């Protein structure tokens, strides 16, 4: 255990603040967290700021503006360890849907004066811009995983994060597979565990917010889901969601889309 408390900074980029709220929502652990680390910069929690450099930077959000490219470089220069927090930071998030369309078109639809906007054509994960030391997925992140990573850093060991898919978590909590039991499309078999399989436990399919699992059999996933589609294009939509810009999910959709076109 280090003698001096590590200084931690929490930053927000393009995001909904949900991951920062997951930290503030720790309730039982929050006081212990404040004991274990020095929260030096966390605007969502307090405007009191301590100057850097920081030991740990927790970064929420994706990079969507030219200014954010500059800011994320400053974050990197100012921190020993950078952790991307949540699926915006690890895969671009839901705003990365623009990567598959025209950002101009979207801007025109939403804003009366899109000419005042300064934005990039794409929403991209933090690791596309700077070196990231660790990625924590989820929309939002699982607070237990945030604590595990901080405890691991405090003790100078690797964090214990599950390498398997959501299916194992469903079975451990006794949730019958929604694909088999209810015919509900679910991308849990291709999705990294860590959430505790909360969606299938509520009787709905996993929509992949924890991002792709390791060693995904993309062909087999696509085949299974295409067979059970409740409307044309459902499989592609499932993969092109919050983690849609993650390379594995992009690959699956690229495989499916030509088939969908042919079917039309």
């Amino acid at each position, binding site marked *: 255990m280090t003698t001096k408390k590590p200084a931690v900074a929490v930053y927000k980029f393009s995001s909904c603040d949900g991951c920062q709220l997951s930290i503030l929502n720790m309730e039982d652990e929050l006081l212990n967290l404040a004991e274990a680390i020095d929260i030096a910069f966390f605007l969502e929690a307090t405007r009191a700021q301590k100057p850097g450099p920081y030991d740990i930077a927790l970064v929420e959000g994706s990079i969507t503006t030219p200014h954010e490219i500059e800011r994320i470089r400053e974050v990197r220069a100012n921190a020993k360890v950078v952790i991307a927090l949540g699926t915006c930071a690890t895969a671009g998030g839901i705003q990365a849907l623009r990567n598959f369309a025209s950002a101009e078109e979207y801007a025109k639809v939403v804003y009366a004066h899109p000419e005042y906007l300064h934005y990039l054509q794409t929403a991209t994960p933090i690791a596309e811009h700077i070196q990231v030391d660790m990625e924590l997925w989820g929309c939002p992140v699982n607070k237990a995983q945030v604590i595990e990573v901080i405890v691991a850093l405090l003790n100078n060991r690797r964090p214990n994060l599950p390498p398997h898919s959501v299916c194992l978590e469903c079975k451990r909590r006794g949730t019958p597979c929604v694909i*088999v*039991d209810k015919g509900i499309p679910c991308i849990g078999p291709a999705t990294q565990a860590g959430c505790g399989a909360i969606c299938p436990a509520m009787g709905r399919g996993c929509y992949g917010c924890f991002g792709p699992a390791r060693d995904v059999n993309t062909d087999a996933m696509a085949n299974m889901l295409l067979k059970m589609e409740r409307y044309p294009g459902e499989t592609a939509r499932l993969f092109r969601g919050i983690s849609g810009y993650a390379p594995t999910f992009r690959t699956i959709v690229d495989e499916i889309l030509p088939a969908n076109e042919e079917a039309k």
Partner: protein
Amino acid sequence: MPSDRLPDIGSTITIEKPAFNLLLSRLKEEGYLPIGPRIKNDSLIYEEIESLEDLPRGYSTEQKPGSFRLVREKHARYFDIIPGSHSWKQFLFPSRVELFTLRKNGKGWENTTQPAEIPSYAFIGVRACELAAIQIQDNIFMRSDFTDPIYRARRQRVFIVSVNCTHPAETCFCTSMGTGPRVKELFDLSLTELDDVFVLTVGSQLARRLMTGIPFDDASGYILTNVEHRLNHAEQQMRRRLDTSDLPELILEHLDHPYWNEIGKRCLSCASCTQVCPTCFCWDTQDEMSLDGKTAKRTRVWDSCFNPGYSHQAGGNTRPTIYSRYRQWMSHKFGTWKQQYGTLGCVGCGRCITWCPAEIDITEEIAALRNEVKR
């Protein structure tokens, strides 16, 4: 029908169905927690039951590769379902169990583990294949040279009411594995459901004693013939076959066959087959520590040979491909299991077939491997 008379061990009797609730009350008075099949959120699970009314009366199940459906029927029977993804394994070998908690005490660590309260379970409705699975796990967890205390403490207290299967599912193949559908041993009470009565065979002293005050009749020749007829019919209904005559050699002598790769192309490596399998016993231990560094906890959780983190060691995973993980699973069940424990690791319950989202059917894969090898 004098109520002070008790049935002999080994005898077969009949009770009116509502009288089964008396038996459940008796079990609860003796400190047992009855667990049985019930429907919750439109799914068939194993959970605590209060009375006969909690059982899935009037339901049947339709099972095929990758699909499980509950079907409401016109009958009024309680045990016509064939179990779903749950198995009794989850009570004897829990999916998550705390092993110990340590608390920092000056320079050292103090073991502050609270002794777990272990319920005495009464399993209501254990199928013949499931009894065979329990027997297999007994051999694993209660060996003469090594005994798992968590499993043993739960196992030794279990009261078993077994059920003879009269309506096997399409994915069942217990006749091929020699485990069912007829229950032969290891039960306290063995039940066969007829339309109007439960037929019970008394298997233990405790079961005999629990019958005190419960009205029963000796099973007539007509009833016994009826039971026999239904079980023969169930055997004939079972269409699915697994030829075990050349196992384990078929698998162990062809570990490098290209057919494994064909299965690997279809497998999601999701681990569902291993988790629903009533004999799979792999676990992992997970450590966690509190933020203040003063408390450490070790937990045991179900693991699977399909987990990319399984058998991960210096240099990486010894089975880096999906096909090699599938081969590990199947060659253990139908190959090295025999060398390890003297039996095959499969009881023919069909769960891995029904609950595979990719619809991989182990009986078809073994047959296909056999054909490929012969070519």
